[in-house]
């Protein structure tokens, strides 16, 4: 690919969260000379989303958003911010987008960083004026905070025991609310972690006073004299003063779909984050990409994926030969527990526990002898070494992994002849 002469070109980015903002700054760093416009429906200066369910929520009136970049740095990098504006459609032939204020914006390169929306399922009895919330944006958190107000002894029911649900549960419990988690599956975090970790987090929440109800599918919500009553499929009734849905997301793929792009399971992109249209790229939570490490199509909802795809797309647009080839990583903070995950454990046939203490351990997932992923609970060293081993792809000896007498730097599987000299730098 030839380097692009960009001074007379316009790049438009739809979505100014982790992916879009990092992309814009990366594109300037790569040398884009032309116009660069970031558009988002959210009126707030772009901010970090992960703290929303944690410190931002629990600090109530003292909470302030953690901005991705300072306002003046957008001007310094000549990045135009167009916030509080929705993009309605894309005209691929004319290479324009249509905005909700009736204006049109031409582009030479278009980047879709549209992310996802919290999904609220259709539940019988659910009405708009009920204290029922979801959590994706700063505005969502402010609405929950208004509902809580000074009454921090309210009964909160979280529907869905995924990461958002459990982080919320921890925050609300810490704030004094009485929290119940309703989970449809037989364990929490069922979509994202292996059973051992689900059980750990279930116990962690229970020991902090959160009630966890498993195998509970919500079928109806109704108002009572004192609040809300949630009915589940097996006839159970749970009372609540407020309800938060954390049951997953729906990719914001409407724009791409209406423009005729492939959106089955996410906006399809190649290894350079380009869609089937040469001038349209997509990055972050909204994309579906083929992951080389795991040899399958993935849609990842994470800061890592957003930031790494942003860098790849920026380099690709400037004509560099790049390929997205990152190992996924993720974290979650609940109470005083830090979970760090690297790799993807789905499909493992062996899980090795390395236990330093009750609240400090790691799980190492293997498939056919190959390390797939490491989940580390208050064990940053395990996370760091897991990352190194995953990058090196060197075969490990699972027995050594589980043996506390063996150091992290000595997990390699070695032929008998080298067994006496098994410490190797990875």
């Amino acid at each position, binding site marked *: 690919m030839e380097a692009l002469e960009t001074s007379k070109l316009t790049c438009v980015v739809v979505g100014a969260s*982790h992916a879009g903002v990092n992309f814009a700054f990366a594109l300037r760093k790569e040398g884009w000379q032309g116009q660069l416009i970031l558009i988002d429906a959210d009126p707030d200066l772009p901010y970090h989303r*992960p703290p929303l369910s944690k410190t931002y929520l629990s600090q109530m009136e003292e909470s302030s958003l953690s901005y991705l970049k300072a306002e003046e740095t957008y001007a310094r990098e000549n990045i135009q911010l167009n916030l509080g504006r929705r993009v309605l459609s894309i005209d691929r032939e004319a290479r324009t987008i249509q905005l909700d204020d009736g204006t049109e914006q031409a582009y030479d390169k278009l980047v879709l960083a549209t992310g996802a929306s919290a999904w609220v399922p259709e539940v019988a009895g659910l009405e708009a004026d009920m204290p029922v919330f979801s959590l994706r944006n700063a505005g969502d958190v402010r609405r929950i905070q208004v509902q809580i107000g000074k009454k921090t002894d309210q009964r909160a029911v979280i529907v869905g025991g995924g990461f958002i649900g459990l982080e919320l549960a921890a925050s609300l419990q810490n704030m004094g609310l009485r929290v119940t988690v309703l989970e449809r599956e037989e364990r929490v975090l069922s979509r994202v972690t292996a059973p051992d970790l689900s059980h750990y987090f279930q116990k962690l929440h229970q020991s902090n006073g959160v009630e966890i109800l498993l195998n509970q599918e919500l079928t109806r919500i109704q108002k009572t004299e004192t609040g809300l009553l949630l009915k589940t499929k097996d006839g159970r009734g749970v009372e609540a003063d407020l309800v938060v849905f954390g049951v997953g997301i729906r990719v914001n793929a409407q724009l791409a779909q209406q423009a005729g792009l492939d959106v089955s399971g996410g906006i399809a992109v190649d290894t350079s984050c380009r869609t089937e249209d040469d001038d349209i790229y997509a990055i972050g939570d909204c994309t579906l990409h083929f992951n080389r490490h795991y040899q399958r199509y993935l849609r990842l909802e994470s800061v890592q994926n957003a930031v790494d795809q942003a860098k790849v797309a920026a380099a690709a647009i400037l004509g560099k030969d790049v390929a997205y080839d990152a190992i996924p990583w993720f974290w979650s903070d609940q109470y005083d527990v830090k979970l*760090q995950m690297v790799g993807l454990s789905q499909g493992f046939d062996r899980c090795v526990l390395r236990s330093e203490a009750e609240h400090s351990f790691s799980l190492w997932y293997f498939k056919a002898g190959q390390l797939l992923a490491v989940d580390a609970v208050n064990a940053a060293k395990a996370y*760091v070494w897991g990352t190194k081993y995953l990058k090196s792809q060197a075969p490990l000896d699972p027995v050594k992994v589980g043996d506390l007498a063996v150091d992290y730097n000595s997990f390699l599987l070695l032929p008998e002849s080298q067994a006496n000299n098994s410490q190797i730098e990875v």
Partner: protein
Amino acid sequence: MAKITFITADGSSRAVEGHTGSVMELAVSHGIPGIDGDCGGVCSCATCHVHVAPEDLDKTGQASEIEKDMLELADGADEFSRLCCQISLSEDLDGIQLRVAK
């Protein structure tokens, strides 16, 4: 109020002032190149790596255990390395110099 000088990868230096939050937040709010703070300041990403000037290390203190572990993922970490999201701003830091890691 603490004045902190950042020396960036191109060798230029910028002094900025702040009084609350972390050093990472101060750097990001002033757009110091090389300090990304991708995880928002929870010691999860190692993108706010700085080298503390040796004479200032007693003011910032050494890296914590988890910080030391995470620094193993950063390039060029040494005994003066810190993840600056883990350094809280206070008047004690006034005048320190931090070199942004490459």
